[in-house]
């Protein structure tokens, strides 16, 4: 009995020490490889900064537009004054013809044209509806939005003023006229990101994606490099001391987890605080989301790493996925309008759930129960990819063992652990 206990204890001790050895070795390898160090430590530090600077203005204001005023009356000038007052639009050109405005548009000197018809004033006088045409540039969604929302709201406001004025002339009291033209008051408010800032919307999601992408690339590069280094192109070294699937997977994962746990403080704590991005999520909520996310991303990377035969392969075969993953996350394209096929593809990537979950927690202030779907999915993926990672390493270890045994005496020089 005593022997069994001490034997189990001995096995346990060796497992722990071997795992620790793999952890230590992996950490050393990671940090002594310049390319991987850049990927793990520099990219997550630099990208958020760079993107924050690029998107620094956050919102599109003062869109340069031309106003073609064919009416040239007091009424039309009143309308133009109102247009000028909106922060969305900046009237660059007034009193020009439609041809000139279109020419300037071609030269990109204005990004939209507002056409006030010749009949504007007379329409209003005769009680007909005056139609103002907005020609919007589609180059950027934000331009289109600025133009349509800016000019659209001015038209509604101006129309309202005219209506109230008429009702006043018809003998109604001010209050009556107001109630008549607006039977009820409409009040719209944004939940999260009230200014509609682009950085506040895009960067937190991008941060989450960067975590997964750099992790998978780094794991892939390490795997490719390992294959190049090892004598027989195997994924793991010919060192019998480290032959244990669980030890291998756990030891390696621990190294990546350690680095990313530290990086997460910077990416999810410091960056939002410095640049004023939403930070409604509490520490516990972030931990609840980040732990399964890191684990699932690491195991996902380890599982994929079997396909990367060379150091460069992950860059060639995996990097491009960053852009489709951004669109699949549900941040850009609404999930409700995604086909079931793409929904299914989406759900196998840890980043999709983490990005959406992070936006929910951080921008909307959702708590853990309201993010339970994402967190549950991340744990499921963690379990699934843990199994695939173990499977991958088990077959690789079996391969190495076979190679070593077959090689016999002359090839038996096992490579010393670092």
């Amino acid at each position, binding site marked *: 009995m005593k022997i069994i206990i001490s034997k189990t204890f001995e096995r346990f001790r060796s497992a722990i020490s071997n795992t620790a050895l793999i952890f230590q070795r992996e950490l050393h390898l990671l940090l002594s490889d310049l390319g991987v160090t850049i990927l793990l430590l520099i990219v997550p530090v630099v990208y958020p900064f760079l993107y924050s600077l690029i998107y620094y203005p956050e919102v599109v204001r003062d869109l340069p537009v031309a106003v073609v005023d064919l009416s040239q009356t007091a009424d039309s000038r009143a309308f133009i004054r109102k247009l000028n007052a909106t922060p969305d639009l900046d009237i660059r050109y007034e009193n020009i013809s439609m041809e000139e405005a279109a020419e300037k548009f071609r030269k990109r000197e204005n990004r939209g044209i507002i056409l006030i018809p010749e009949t504007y004033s007379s329409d209003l006088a005769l009680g007909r509806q005056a139609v103002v045409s907005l020609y919007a540039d589609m180059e950027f969604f934000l331009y289109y939005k600025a133009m349509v929302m800016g000019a659209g709201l001015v038209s509604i406001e101006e129309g309202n003023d005219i209506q109230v004025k008429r009702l006043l002339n018809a003998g109604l009291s001010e209050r009556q006229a107001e109630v008549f033209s607006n039977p009820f*008051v409409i009040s719209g408010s944004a939940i999260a990101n009230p200014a509609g800032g682009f950085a506040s919307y895009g960067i937190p999601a991008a941060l989450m994606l960067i975590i997964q992408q750099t992790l998978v690339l780094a794991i892939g590069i390490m795997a490719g490099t390992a294959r190049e280094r090892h004598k027989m192109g195997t994924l793991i070294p010919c060192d019998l001391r480290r032959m244990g699937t669980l030890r291998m997977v756990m030891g390696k994962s621990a190294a990546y987890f350690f680095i990313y746990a530290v990086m997460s403080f910077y990416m999810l704590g410091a960056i939002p605080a410095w640049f004023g991005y939403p930070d409604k999520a509490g520490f516990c909520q972030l931990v609840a989301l980040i732990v399964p996310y890191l684990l699932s991303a690491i195991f996902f990377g380890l599982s994929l790493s079997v396909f990367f035969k060379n150091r460069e392969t992950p860059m060639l075969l995996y990097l491009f996925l960053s852009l489709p993953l951004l669109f699949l996350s549900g941040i850009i394209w609404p999930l409700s309008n995604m086909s079931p096929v793409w929904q299914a593809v989406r759900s196998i990537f840890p980043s999709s759930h983490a990005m959406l979950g992070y936006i929910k927690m951080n921008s909307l202030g959702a708590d853990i129960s309201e993010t339970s779907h994402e967190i549950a999915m991340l744990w499921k993926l963690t379990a699934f990819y843990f199994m695939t990672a173990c499977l991958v390493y088990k077959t690789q270890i079996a391969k190495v063992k076979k190679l070593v045994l077959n090689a016999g005496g002359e090839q038996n020089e096992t490579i010393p652990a670092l």
Partner: protein
Amino acid sequence: MPMACLPESSLEPNPDQIMNNKFKALIDVSAREINRMTSRPLYFLAVVILPLLSLLFFVSLMKEGVPVKLPIAVVDYDHTALSAKFRRTIDATPGSSVVMTPATEHEALSELRKGNIYGYVVLPHNLQAEIMNGTQPVVRFYYQNGLLIAGGLIQNDLTVTLHTLSAGVNKQKREAMGQDVPSVYAAIQPVKPEAHLLFNPETSYPVYVTSIMLPIMLQIFILMITVYSIGIEIKERTSREWLRISGKSVAVALTGKLLPYTAIFFILTMFSNFLLFRVLVIPLNTGIIYLVLLSLLYVLAYQAIAVFFVGLLPMMRHSLNLAAFYGILALTLCGFSFPIEHMPEVFRLWAEAFPVRHYMHIFQSQILAGFDFVYAAPSYLKFMLFLLLPFAVIYRLKSALIYQNFIEKIQITDAALAVVSEKSHIQ
């Protein structure tokens, strides 16, 4: 400089022979490259399969145009005929669909946080009564602006719908007073805005996004595979053999090597054009010849940039990192997510260094809007400038190919020694 250092300097043949030899060398190099490409599945994946899948992904994801029927909720505290009518009208709009009617605002907010809805409308107590007696109740709506596109669509949709409902009440009152219908509209909404998309009313925004995403995906593959195909010769020390087959001319070596890729990526670019103009039926408002020219320039410009990267950093791991950084940044700096004009000055200049930015301009101005060539001419000119980039690094690249002095240290030694030597190298 490196020419003189070549150990085997050849005799000078006559000019005709030089041309013939060069042409033959070119064919040989291309044949050698095609042989290399078919030797590993990696090339087939990175040059054909993955680019094709990416193109099809973006085309199928957004082919339906503007997202419709986004799920929203209505919180009805009133429970009258009028509030029911409001709910039905909101549900009937093309942009949103009422998927639930939670009892309280708190519940609606929670549903929004769970991601089940993108917005909700609150119809207050006594809505009908207060409208009738003219005390102007407040109808509030909320939209999830953490997701900018869905939030923007909901905001727009609900603003319009609620104004229409307001006008409907107004209209009923006026009709009750005996006004006739056309003048009712004019009285309710004296100024009506009508939005047109300039010069291209048929195209919806998501389709337009697709038209930019396809070339952005292709440029990543062009950059990466071009850097790889050159860098691997240095890494695996086959560059001298490569150069020997090309008659010791870097120009021939590069042209011959990249020609097969140019052909494949040109076909892929034309296929993406086919997807855009035939499958998504974006109107093509210019001659097809410009489309062909633009596609060819696009592929060549990115190949030139990739050659420049390898010349700059002949060690492949570094040039691949640089290409990856540049390729991913194109999404941001081509300016379609956020307008370049609104970025800080330095990024405006930086954006000029991305061919996809100029591609986008030509695409919008000449191909979508059908403006004359002159308006797009400056962008074509900038495309030409990218083609000059390889000449800046040609000597550096040649010496790297000959001396192979950018070999990664790990490659030289054996497994165990590699780790040790790398360790001592770092310390």
